[in-house]
């Protein structure tokens, strides 16, 4: 009797759980996987190569942006603000309708003339996505 009761309780919980699968959340929106500044170099194919070390950011670093959950045609706008004013704006487009990209990597050399705190703001299809502040131009000590 006890075993039958235990089995019925288990099946009740299991079936309720299975029934709620269709109501479970799905993360379909594009999101930021990484937004950082790296040391990079241009290779012969005019692409940036990520160097295998992070020694801090000196002059003209590379903005390294990794996006997840990209679906269809996407437009990413990167705006760079210095002392609260817009100083650079880059637009990057990728993707095709009906295609799904699990991971998208983008980079852009930030041509910086003055050292200080820069705010990088990312928009996706016209909607604000994320913002992060970076100190650029100040040599950072090598991490031990």
């Amino acid at each position, binding site marked *: 009797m006890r075993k039958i009761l235990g089995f019925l309780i288990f099946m009740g*919980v*299991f079936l*309720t*759980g*299975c029934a*709620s*699968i269709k*109501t*479970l*959340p*799905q*993360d*379909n*929106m594009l*999101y*930021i*996987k*990484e937004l950082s500044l790296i040391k990079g170099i241009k290779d012969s194919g005019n692409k940036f190569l990520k160097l295998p070390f992070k020694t801090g950011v000196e002059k003209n670093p590379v903005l390294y942006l990794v996006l*997840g959950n990209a679906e269809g045609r996407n437009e990413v706008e990167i*705006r760079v*603000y210095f002392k*609260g*004013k*817009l100083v650079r704006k880059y637009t990057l487009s990728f993707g095709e309708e009906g295609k799904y990209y699990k991971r998208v990597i983008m980079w852009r050399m930030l041509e910086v003339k003055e050292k200080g705190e820069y*705010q990088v*703001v990312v*928009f996706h299809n016209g*909607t*604000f*996505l*994320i*913002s*992060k*502040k970076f100190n650029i131009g100040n040599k950072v000590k090598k991490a031990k």
Partner: protein
Amino acid sequence: MGNFTNYRFFKILILLLLSTCMVSGEVLKVKGGYVLYSADDKYIYASGNLHIELLGNSVQGKRFYFDLKRWEGLIAGDVKFSGKEYDMMILKVKKKKLLWMGIRFANEVKTEGKGLSLPEFKYPEDLKKAAIYFEAREITVNERGRVKGTNVLPYALGAPSLPMHYMILDLGKPPDRTHLRPGTLKYTQEEGAFIGVILDVKEKAYRGTYELRYFERGLFKIPGDPRGIIFSGSGSFGKKGKPSLIDNSVFYTTMGKYMDFILSSLREGKLFEFRIQNRVTTRETEKPHYWFSSSLKFKKFKFFQPVVEVGWNYYSSYVIGISTDIIPVKNSILNLSWVKNVQEDHDIITKTEVSSIRFSYTPSIFNLNLNASLTDDLVERTLRKDMSMNLSFKPVPFLQKTFSLTVEGFFMFSRFPYGKDYSEKLSPGLRFSLSSEGFILPGGAELLPGIDVNQMWERGKTSWTEFNYFLGLKKNIWKFTLGVDLSLNSRYKSGGFWVEGYNNYFVNGRIEFKNQGSYITTIFYFNDKMELERVSSMGDVGLFFGFRFRFFSIYNNLRGRITTVETYLEKNLRNAIKLQVGYSLNLKKYFFRVIPL
């Protein structure tokens, strides 16, 4: 009868655990397409058309990042708040009030509200690295950080588990009132299973914590008491934030029916400090032991503070003592004390009076410690004398701080009854120690020498000499470290005509691999005939999903067999429980351990 008691105890325990699941007021509600909660990080990420309610304020947006440890975060993408629109809004809860700053990014950055700094935020990819995380449609958080979810899919080690319509994702902080909460949950093959419940008492006149643990060994066929109870805890009477009037602590276990109960009190005045303690200890096989002790300290003078101490056992013994700390000069302390101890145990009476002097002086160059005591046995009418002195100089660096020399002198004297007569020991000694931080040799290898010399005399007749030499050589190649250690030890004892002594040397070779928190070390031990004696190997390697592989083994080359092996997989779950699964050659079995952290 025993089984019935245990069954009833289990029932009460489960009811107590369930009663801890009470709810209190909602502070944060996140409702939208997708909500991710990591209990390890105490962090919420949400995306979709979100409706957030924070301290009664309603906010809408596309993405939400919120740290429940700091109670701060941000909402981004078409943010709507109080009839205004922003690109991003920083949110912070401080003293149960919402602070906010709305930001619009156009040709200039325009802000409204409080001047808040951009919080550090965590990406969903990083949150999904947690051992356990939850995806939900809706999450609510109360003021104690208790997190509840609706339409929840829990993930364990990255794999989805059974979906739940409603689930408590985090219990949050315990409330600031008297309550029950789950306690120890532990299982090891050696000790069996433990389950406990904790009672936190937070009343006006009393605060304390007590734990009731039930242990089960009989089910797992572990020798010893098959099952039983352990009760332990401590608390204090007195108002919150003020010195306690009376402290108490208790420990009881059904194993041997052992109980220890202490009541104590410390009162501090301007002139006096008074301490009183009452202790009761009971054991199944012995009669109860009651011990009362008290001390009174006179604090009028800074350089002279006498203490009177009294101790009394209900059955047989008492202690009376007086002592004082005197500070004659800066960096020094002189302690004078006198103690009378009377004990009666199975018709054997011991009566002693101990008078002692302790002096220490620690200026910047050297440390001087002096101890002298006289023990007068009032029954046997004998007197024991002990004295010791130690003078050590601070290490002297030389050769650009490559070497450092330490010199220490000591002197010991004792005179104690030996049969009808007295025996005396007089032992002066010296110690020199030369150590080095190491040199870098050509080729990048590192050399580490060290010498230690000890010399001791006894009554001018016998002399001991001890030399210890050490030489280490180390070289790093990529992620490997190769090392050789040579150690020589010599000991000589001369007394009259005879000289006793021996010397030996040991060599060991070491290979070590280190990479991002993982390591494997193998050490080869050679004896003084340069024969390989044994090889030991140990390692700790990080694997996927936070699993770690750990091992330790010893191979005895002279016997030609492996003598020790312990190897296991280990996993920390939410920094609360450690799971270990593996094999031990010493136990000669596979083991599974659940260890609380």
